[in-house]
Structure formats: structure tokens, C-alpha cells
């Protein structure tokens, strides 16, 4: 059994095999593998006895259910106007410089993916970003450097 198949089985055991289990299972796959591969989706379709196209349709609907390979740490910078007004572009610039990738890309060592996202709900403390689940707020380029340097060591 492949790792992905085992993971999907484990998640299905945990969340059940009904339609309602689909999103928790997809979330579980993203947590473990950082994205939902075609293999994972067919395994899920098989476990839940549903159409693979429907699994794909559901996964692609949600911004956090990535269907493309992502890095170990997914950085999502808030692109809402309030964060823009507080210097979001400088943050993006800093991240791009540090990681040597553009928004939407993943570093070649598969450690970081840089994305923009819609409102994170930290408008009073912009600019804000998420790294995986963790929120970072009131960012400055200096702060970003420290944060990313820490992650680089992880």
C-alpha cells in the first residue's frame, strides 16, 4: 500500500465514509502532504464510493485545498485593500527576494510556497500572512526576514 493510500484509509476511518467526510478527509490530506494529488483523489473517491470528478470539483472549489504540489511551508499573504494600504507589496517583495520565487511558485527544495490570499481577518494589524496555520501580523520587511529565517532552520 502506498503512503497516500494508507493516509486516505486512516482519514476515512477517522472521519467516516459518507459525503460529509469528504472535506475533512481532503483537509487531512493537505495537512499531511500539503496538496491533494490525483492519486489521493482517486483513493478518496474509492473509499467514499463517489465520482472522482466530484472529488476534484469539491477540492478545486476551496482555496486551501491545494491540488498542486506545495512546499512544506505555505505562505499566504493577505491581499485585501487594508493590508495593501499598510505595505503588503513590500512584504511580498521581501519574501520573493528571500525565497527567490514569485507569487504562486514553490522553492526548488519544496520548502516554501508563496501565495496571496483573500482577507485573513487581521485588517487592524496588517499586513498579515499565514504560514500554514500560523498567523503573522503587523509585518515589516525586517520582521519577515526573522520569521523566514526561523522557518528555514525548521
Amino acid at each position, binding site marked *: 500500500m502506498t503512503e497516500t493510500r494508507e493516509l486516505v484509509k486512516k482519514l476515512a476511518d477517522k472521519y467516516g465514509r459518507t459525503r460529509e467526510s469528504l472535506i475533512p478527509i481532503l483537509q487531512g490530506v493537505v495537512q499531511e502532504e500539503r496538496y491533494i494529488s*490525483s492519486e489521493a*483523489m*482517486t483513493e478518496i*473517491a*474509492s473509499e467514499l464510493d*463517489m*465520482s*472522482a*470528478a*466530484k*472529488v*476534484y*470539483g469539491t477540492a*478545486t*472549489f476551496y482555496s486551501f485545498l491545494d491540488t498542486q504540489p506545495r512546499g512544506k511551508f505555505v505562505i499566504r499573504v493577505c491581499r485585501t485593500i487594508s493590508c495593501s494600504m499598510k505595505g503588503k507589496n513590500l512584504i511580498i517583495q521581501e519574501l520573493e527576494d528571500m525565497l527567490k520565487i514569485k507569487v504562486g511558485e514553490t522553492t526548488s527544495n519544496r520548502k516554501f510556497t508563496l501565495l496571496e490570499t483573500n482577507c485573513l481577518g487581521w485588517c487592524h494589524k496588517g499586513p498579515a500572512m499565514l504560514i500554514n496555520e500560523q498567523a503573522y501580523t503587523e509585518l515589516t520587511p525586517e520582521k519577515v526576514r526573522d520569521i523566514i529565517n526561523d522557518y528555514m532552520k525548521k
Partner: protein
Amino acid sequence: MANQINLTIDGMPITVDEGTTILQAAKKLNIHIPTLCYHDDLCVAGNCRVCVVEMKGSKTLPASCAMPVAEGMEIMTNTIKVRTARKHIIDLLLSEHNAKCTTCYKNGNCELQELASEYKISEPMFIDLVPYKNYQMDAYSPSIIKDDSKCIRCQRCVRTCEELQHVSALGVAYKGAHMKISTFFENPMFEVICTNCGQCVNRCPTGALIERNYVDEVWQAIFDDDKHVVVQTAPAVRVALGEALGMEPGEIVTGKMVTALRRLGFDSVLDTDFSADLTIMEEGFELLGRLKKALVDKDPNVKLPMATSCSPGWIKFIEHTYPEYLDNLSTCKSPQQMFGALAKTYYAQKRNLDPAKIVSVSIMPCTAKKFEADRPEMSSSGYKDVDYVLTTRELAVMIKQAGIDFSALPESQYDSVMGISTGAAVIFGATGGVMEAALRTAYEVVTGREVPFNGLNIALVRGMDGVREASIKIDGTKPEWKFLEGVELKTVVAHGLTNAKRVMDAVREGKGGWHFIEIMACPGGCIGGGGQPIPTNEEIRRKRVEAIYREDAGMPIRKSHENPEVIALYKEYLQEPNSHKSHELLHTHYKARQRY
């Protein structure tokens, strides 16, 4: 009785059952409200918003297809507010749509085009979005072409694939501006679990889903003097072709169609009904053989219930979904493929033709037949048994191209050999037809008497219910069939793959106790096939079915085993049903495919 609701539409009072939608109520008043995502066969989506109407007291315009009536409701279907909104919506759809209508395959049979014309959309009101889109075209399938640039996202195809067929090869993917109709991981239709049934094609309001057409290839063959082009016509085509040529649903156009095919230049106009009769002989004896093995030999390996194998959509469905039951399928090829195998062997021999120079064309109500003809299993004549499959719609195109006034054509007869058929073959076109034809023959073979039903009409297996069970008690058997004495032959008929699934799940659970299963992939059977004229809906299917049974009742011979050409074929060529030669040419096995 449901509660009665009073409302007015455009000032006209009407009383309807509770639960009726505004759209349905308006229809009763003969008020036409335009629709796009709505389809009689499908659940209500309410997403195109073209059918919006004004409702007194509401700031928003509800979608009439999705809004149930309420007491005292006042609806206006034609106000300036409604007209402006509809025009905007049509304009928006056009802005997202690759509107090269003149070069579109659906030109002239496109609901969006019709609406644009009705609302006199002239200059585009909004920015053309097509250049901003990375629209994909999937033309890998031998049956279906999917062109996203023509798609209006009404999701009729998605609902068809899910609700009617329980396949869901098509789904909705992404959201917002990127929302699209997609297969799993946007793989080609050819590589996913699509059954090629074409029900989506039949319901697509635009040119986003169309059949792969072989019209030009067939013209090429016809005009190639070196080729002998034979054509076969499926039972369901003769009761639907007229619709695509300006006639009313339910007209039988067999004779005109034969004349038209001859005028198009086919060298020989033959009938799939002939091979349908042949299928009954092969399949009927196969069933009796399996019953014997089960009841007399107590062979544990014999697979029952036996399932029909005429419908290529059903075959692909079972390959993907119930591969463990592939051995329950009759090993008979479909009538189209039996015909194809014989055209380049028996027919060639009879007519003294070089099979290499025969081009075999079939006219089918079906898009899956195109895929079937391409299967590697289908070349037992040593050549590709059927070279080109045209849908009913494509034949209509050819007839129009040839400048033929179809309704004014005289009627004529099929050529021979392989042109004579019976009423039992015609009813193959309707759900339950194969079962009825098989029972007419099998019962008589076993008992020496006709089936005990008035006028040979086995009403038990007819009708439009999704799953229909019937049983027929066998008594007074001939000596060689004595083991069947007193046996209650249990059958079940299903049409539409959602119903096929119901039957197969029951089989899987060990329920039913059936001996013989007839399954047709399309709602109503072949008369509702994916290659039939557009539109197809419940009422039209009913009319086509009625025509099929009328045609049967009017045939001089109504039992397959009495078809003189079939009798001659066995005598001259095949010897007997399920003979070695038969197996070589007329039978096959299918293989499991991936489930997802």
C-alpha cells in the same frame, strides 16, 4: 389532491397545485419564458437566470424555474425591468462565449443563438472575455468533443451525467471566473469513466458538447468509385429522423429514409434490424444454454442472471463500475457489430466483393456506437467491422447537404441480403424491446407455442418506469427443454444508467433472483439515445416509443426466428446459433477498466 394556489401571471389569473413553479404555471397560460439551464429531464438548477420574472413586492427578480408559486402572487413576465435584465444576462453569456456561430457545428440548433436572435443582440454590450480565457478543447474521444469556449456553465451536462446516468464523468470545478465543467483532473473524456452515451450532448444547449462527426469521411467513401459503401440503420433512427428534418415527433420514416440513403449514394441500404433478429437468436440460445448448465448440469461456474450487451454505453459502464459482473454479460456483440462482422464476410461473399473495398457505415441513435466501432474487439472480419458510425443527427445533416426534400420523398424497401427484418427487431429501439423480442423467440423455441400474450405484445415489459420486473411461467415444454418445465423465468428491464445501477446493486446484494436482465444506457432505450435529434424529452421519447410499437404491429413477421434471411444465414453460413463460426464473428468478451 395538492393544495390549490391562486396567482396571476401578466394579469391572468390561474390556479395550480402547490409546489408548481412559476415557469410551469406560465406554461399553462401559454406564456413562454426563455430558459437555458432548465431541462425537463433534470432537477432545477436556477443558475443561468435567463428565466427571471418580476414579482410584485419583491426587489429582486426571482428565477421562474426555481420559484414555487404562492397564494396571491402577482407575476409579470414581460416588463422593462425583466427585458433589461434578460438582455444583460444573454449579453454576459455571449461575452464569455466563443460566438463564432457561422463556423459552429451547432449553428442553427443552439439555444443561446436562438435567444440572442430573439432579443436582437446586435453590438456586444460588454467586453469580450474569450481572449482572457485559456479555453480548452478536448477532441480525443471518438464519440464526444468538448469545447469549453462554447460552454455557458448551465450544468445540464453535469446534472445529466449524475442524475440520469450516475456516472459523473463531468463535474463542476474551480469557482468564480475560473469555474468550469471538467472531468477528473481535466483529463480527456477518452481517459475517464465517460460511457460515451452522449446524453450530455443531447442536452447541451450550445456547441460545448457535440458528437464527433464523420460526415465528410462518409462523403469521401461514397464518392470513391473504388469503394462499395454499405449502410445499416438502427431501429430507433426511423422513428426520430423526421424530427431533425422538420417533421413531428413520432412519425415513422423508414421508407423515406431508405430512399434518402439510396439518393445519397450508398451502394447498399441495409438494416441493423436484420442483425437485431440475429442477436435474438444468438442471445436467446445463449440464455437457454446458460439455464441448462445451471439447472441440469448444476455447473457452479455458469453466470446468471445474463445481461444484454447491445448498449455500448452500458458495456463501458459495467467495465468501469461492475467489472466483477462482466461474465454475466451475454457474449453477443451488439447488432451493429454483428452486422459489421457479417458485412465484410458473409455479405462480401454473397455479393462477390473484396472485403477490403467495402466501407461499412452505420446510422445510429447513439454516440457510444462510435466508440464501440473503434474497439479493438471489433475486427473479427479481419478488417475494422464498422468503419464509420453516424448519429441520426449526422444523417439529417447529410440529407440536407444533398438538397433532398425529405418529406416529399417516396418510400422504398431495404436492399438484400441483410435487409429483411421483423417486428421483434424494431422494438430493440425501445426499453424492454430486446427482452420482449427474446421472450417471443425463446418461449416458442422451448414450448413450440407463441408467447401467451395478446397479439404477441408483452405489455409486462413495456413502459417507461426506470426498472420493470416481469416473470413468465414456462409450461408445456418440448422434450429437449423439459428441464425448463414449470420454471418461472424472471426478468428485469432497466433504462438509464442510474436505473442500471439500481439493478446491479440488487444483483450484488443477491436480490432479484432474475435470469435475464435487459439494460439500455439511455432513458427510454435507444429512442432516447445521445445521437437522437435535439431536443429529446419525456414527451418526445413517449412519442418515439409509440411509433416503435406501431411499426412492430404493422410488420408481416414479428418473431426473430422467422426472419427468412436469418434462417438462410444459418443454413448457408453459420450452421446454428452459438456455433463455432458464430462465436468467431458474433461474440466477444470485455475487459475491466479502472473505476475512477
